[in-house]
């Protein structure tokens, strides 16, 4: 079923799901939504299973004209949003119908917004996932960001019988300074054991920040004397903080598969959404925790998310 036409695509809007697993050993990155929390909630607000495909919208929002009655919800970065010119709220479901036009504008806070439609965005599953891998030109909608005139489909499903909304106190804020928790490693032995620079100074997000990685600027993080300047190439994990030759950290994200530089620490999975909502000029600081603490945080975050009651 045709769901909507793209009137204007916004800055960088792609179809994503939870990612493409099982092919990183063949050089295909995981991809998928960067802010998993906001994307999950968008799906839940329209009555979807959270494995369905959503739009990931970056910095500047799109304008969409709908073809059919649908339930939609927008979460994540705060953007002014209108339906046929009338201001609408994020983090709640709304019913749209034929010829309704939804317009999202520039972000007010955060970086990435998520739009879910009832039934989920219907694109072919490529290698097990709906996610767009722009670098490889595959998945999502024709393997690329949306363009003017694209027509996207949704699966036809029964619509919600009542509106759903996220409890106010559960809507995240997206401040311009965030603290990210990290587990030291995989190559923390290449650096000063106390990781002084990483843990005591602040790093600024540079304009080179995308789904492949976030380049940061701040106090240099030198490799310890006597240690090699690079490592034998190895696969990377989202959140890995790689230190290249200029000694300025890069946080690797979901469109990266292999790297040859040492990684001092890895941002925990629970905090990747916070990072994904920062924009160039925002500042980050890092707090080291051990694996047991990181797993406690992981379990607690999952429990909290599962406990959210939408009404």
């Amino acid at each position, binding site marked *: 079923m045709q769901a909507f036409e793209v009137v204007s695509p916004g800055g960088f809007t792609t179809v994503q799901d939870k990612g493409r*697993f*099982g*092919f*990183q*050993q*063949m*050089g*295909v990155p995981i991809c998928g939504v960067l802010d998993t929390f906001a994307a999950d909630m968008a799906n839940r607000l329209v009555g979807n299973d959270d494995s369905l495909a959503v739009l990931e919208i970056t910095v500047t929002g799109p304008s969409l004209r709908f073809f059919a009655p649908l339930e939609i919800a927008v979460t994540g970065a705060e953007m002014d949003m209108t339906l046929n010119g009338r201001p609408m709220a994020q983090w709640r479901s709304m019913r749209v119908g034929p010829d309704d036009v939804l317009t999202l504008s520039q972000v007010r806070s955060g970086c990435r917004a998520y739009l879910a439609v009832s039934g989920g965005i219907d694109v072919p599953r*490529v*290698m097990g996932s709906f996610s767009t891998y722009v*670098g*490889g*030109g*595959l*998945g999502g909608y024709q393997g690329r960001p949306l363009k003017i005139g694209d027509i996207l489909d949704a699966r036809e499903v029964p619509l919600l019988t009542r509106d759903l909304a996220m409890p106010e106190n559960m809507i995240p804020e997206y401040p311009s300074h965030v603290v990210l928790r*990290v*587990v*030291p*490693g*995989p*190559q923390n032995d290449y650096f000063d054991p106390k990781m002084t620079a990483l843990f005591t100074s602040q790093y600024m997000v540079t304009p080179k920040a995308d789904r492949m990685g976030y380049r940061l600027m701040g106090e240099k993080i030198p490799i310890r004397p006597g240690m090699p300047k690079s490592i*034998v*190439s*190895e*696969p990377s*994990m989202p*959140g*890995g903080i790689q230190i290249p030759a200029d000694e300025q950290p890069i946080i690797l994200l979901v469109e990266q*598969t*292999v790297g040859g530089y040492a*990684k001092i620490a*890895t*941002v*925990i*999975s*629970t905090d990747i959404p916070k990072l994904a909502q920062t924009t160039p000029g925002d500042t980050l600081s890092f707090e080291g925790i051990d*694996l047991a603490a*990181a*797993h406690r*945080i*992981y*379990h607690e975050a*999952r429990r909290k998310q599962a406990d959210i009651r939408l009404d």
Partner: protein
Amino acid sequence: MTTQIFDRPVCRLAGDTGFLAEFGEGIDPQVNARVRAVARALEADPVPGIREVIPTYRSLLFIYDPAVTHPDRLFEVMETLDIDRAAMDDQAVRVVEIPVCYGGEFGPDIDTVGQHASLSRQEVIQIHSAPEYLIYMVGFTPGFAFLGGLDDRLVTPRLKTPRTRVPRGSVGIANNQTGMYPITSPGGWQVIGRTPLNLFAPDRENPFLYRAGDKIRFVPISLAEYDRLAGKEGG
């Protein structure tokens, strides 16, 4: 580079959902064989909660769900494997033949590679297509194979200025490495030829023609043969 096989795999944490098990130091076929043996054993008998097992030159990256499993559990499983035996059993490698049309518009840098070592075009082709190259790992872009075994005479530095667009199927050399571009991408390799095969076809039942541990042999073909095979591949 010095190489060494570790008695027991060394664990390196990669956040709360990943870790690396390192089997040795450096780039070495024996270390790599152990990596693959463990990867294949875990593929044949998967451990619940493991989302990806990614073999590399000398280590395995595990991506796991902490709600289901823990790195300690994986190390227990690895303890039960007879890695030496498995690595021995893994000797029956597959050799994948990749037809390559060398030189001409497909291989604009073949003479640069030749001049670098005072070799004729024919000698470059003959030397490049002689060995069986081991695929140490696949990554960077879909289907990009990190190959070992390039003849020292063909070692050539990267281009000073990388090309913004290297067509898919291009075969090139960069320093002591040789490889193929499965997708069109920017790149700084000295391009010496092109294969008509679709090295990465996401819609094909098996999108890839080879995997880590296989060997690659390049087979020189004529332009006419290239066109015939390219037609069969559907462009």
